[in-house]
């Protein structure tokens, strides 16, 4: 088994290669504006570091978000296209799950990422493998009751200390964690989801009621 993991749903552009036993190479860069430029060179670097080529990959796992749209699609499109050429399965995993999986917190906690527009993408976890709520997008103040008293991981928690006073590592998702979680699930015989984006928001678009009258009144 050689699993290639990618995630571009958050400011982290992260790539890892997992051989079924451990992560053999990885790369993470945090740059919210350059997902498109950074991802392919990172894949190239990770493969080179592992001394292998893309055609040796037997499966792909990609973070499906939730995440701000533009960057999120870079990872998904790349994973889909690799899958098309290589003829290998492409799996999707929730980005918050990978973030949670990398935490060392005992007991319940929250994972939250920055959704911009003063909102967070978030979910609650019973432990680092068990998500107990659907991923959601909300204003931090609106979910204060639901996360009160819980430690939290992710950049979304750090951004809003009023709602998340107890912020923990990790701040950013890593493809190494994504790969490890995917391998654990696959080896347990679990079916992983299809690589479909979790946007959680509808596109911004105004339906014009009518054309704007141009004749001065």
């Amino acid at each position: 088994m050689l699993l290639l993991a990618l995630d571009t749903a958050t400011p982290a552009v992260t790539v890892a290669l997992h051989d079924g036993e451990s992560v053999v190479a990885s790369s993470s860069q945090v740059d919210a504006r350059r997902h498109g430029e950074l991802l392919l060179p990172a894949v190239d670097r990770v493969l080179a570091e592992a001394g292998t080529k893309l055609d040796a990959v037997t499966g792909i796992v990609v973070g499906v978000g939730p995440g701000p749209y533009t960057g999120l699609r870079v990872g998904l499109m790349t994973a889909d296209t690799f899958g098309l050429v290589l003829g290998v399965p492409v799996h999707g995993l929730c980005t918050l799950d990978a973030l949670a999986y990398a935490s060392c917190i005992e007991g319940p906690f929250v994972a939250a990422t920055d959704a911009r527009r003063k909102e967070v993408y978030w979910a609650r976890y019973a432990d680092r493998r068990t998500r107990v709520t659907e991923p959601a997008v909300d204003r931090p103040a609106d979910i204060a009751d639901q996360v009160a008293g819980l430690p939290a991981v992710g950049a979304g928690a750090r951004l809003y200390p009023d709602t998340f006073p107890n912020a923990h590592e990790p701040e950013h998702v890593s493809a190494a964690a994504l790969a490890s979680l995917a391998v654990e699930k696959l080896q347990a015989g679990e079916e992983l989801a299809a690589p479909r984006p979790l946007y959680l928001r509808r596109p911004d678009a105004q339906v014009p009621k009518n054309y704007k009258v141009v004749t001065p009144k």
Partner: protein
Amino acid sequence: MADLRDAPLVLGIETSCDETGVGIVRGTTLLADAVASSVDEHARFGGVVPEVASRAHLEAMVPTIDRALKEAGVAATDLDGIAVTAGPGLAGALLVGVSAAKAYAYALGKPLYGVNHLASHICVDQLEHGALPEPTMALLVSGGHSSLLLSTDITSDVRPMGATIDDAAGEAFDKIARVLNLGFPGGPVIDRYAKEGDPEAIAFPRGLTGPRDPAYDFSFSGLKTAVARWIEAKRAAGEEVPVRDVAASFQEAVVDVLTRKAVRACKDEGVDHLMIGGGVAANSRLRALAQERCEAAGIRLRVPRPKLCTDNGAMVAALGAEMVARGRAASDWDLSADSSLPVTDPHVPGTSQGHGHNHDHVHEVAKDNLYS
């Protein structure tokens, strides 16, 4: 014109607006032109919604690549290169195509060519009428662009002669169709109504045609407003709006200015070929009037069939094939989607040494890299 079997086989990907296009060409021969459009999803918004377009590109890309390969009857491994629209266009939409093209080229071990959308609109004519004359004057008109361009070599030299200073010609069609309650997109429906109307019924203004105005620039905003006011005045007076005459007179005002300026540019520059591309090139009156005026001026007009005029992947493949044929440098793996890529950049050559890519190649960051 027959292509040699060893002419470059290139797959092109286009996602600058609302069409997911994948085309395959061998040299100047069209092998496949697969397009998935999200236009219906935008209709109720009266214009293209960038996020809706980007979501649709992600969904449509892999099936459209598959369809193009089947249509062309070629294997992906036989391709000589992958071309993609790097810009200009909607940033988020471009990024989906660029991501797909990079992954595709990398996985196949083929060179990647990030190319200019406008230069592609010109180059597509090679698939219809053979090698582009050099120089070529090109009039590109669509919902996104209205430009007059002069090219002596489509892979390296495209000069802007003029462009719209406000709205694109296609936007004016959309707007007037909306004022007339004819739906979106406006181009085809205005064309249809105009066929039954009188183009001289109403004298709408011709923008930027005064003696002191820039000779090759366009303006359609004033025309748009004049037409809307005229319609509103009719309605306010309780009179019926003569939709066919309005459509015909409005359309005449647009195509009159477009063709007049294009022919003038050809004459001034001593260019004996004019090509017209972009979605508005499908307009029947534009084609007819351009034909008439070019003939009178001794200019040969080249307009590709309508399906090649609207955004598609074949045009990107056509320019990519020309890049390969002329030995232009491939793009690097960190190629950006550039929503405002200048028209003077027909493609985005890589900065790393040599050209072409293979998996053993080490991509060093150039010292003058903007981001380092």
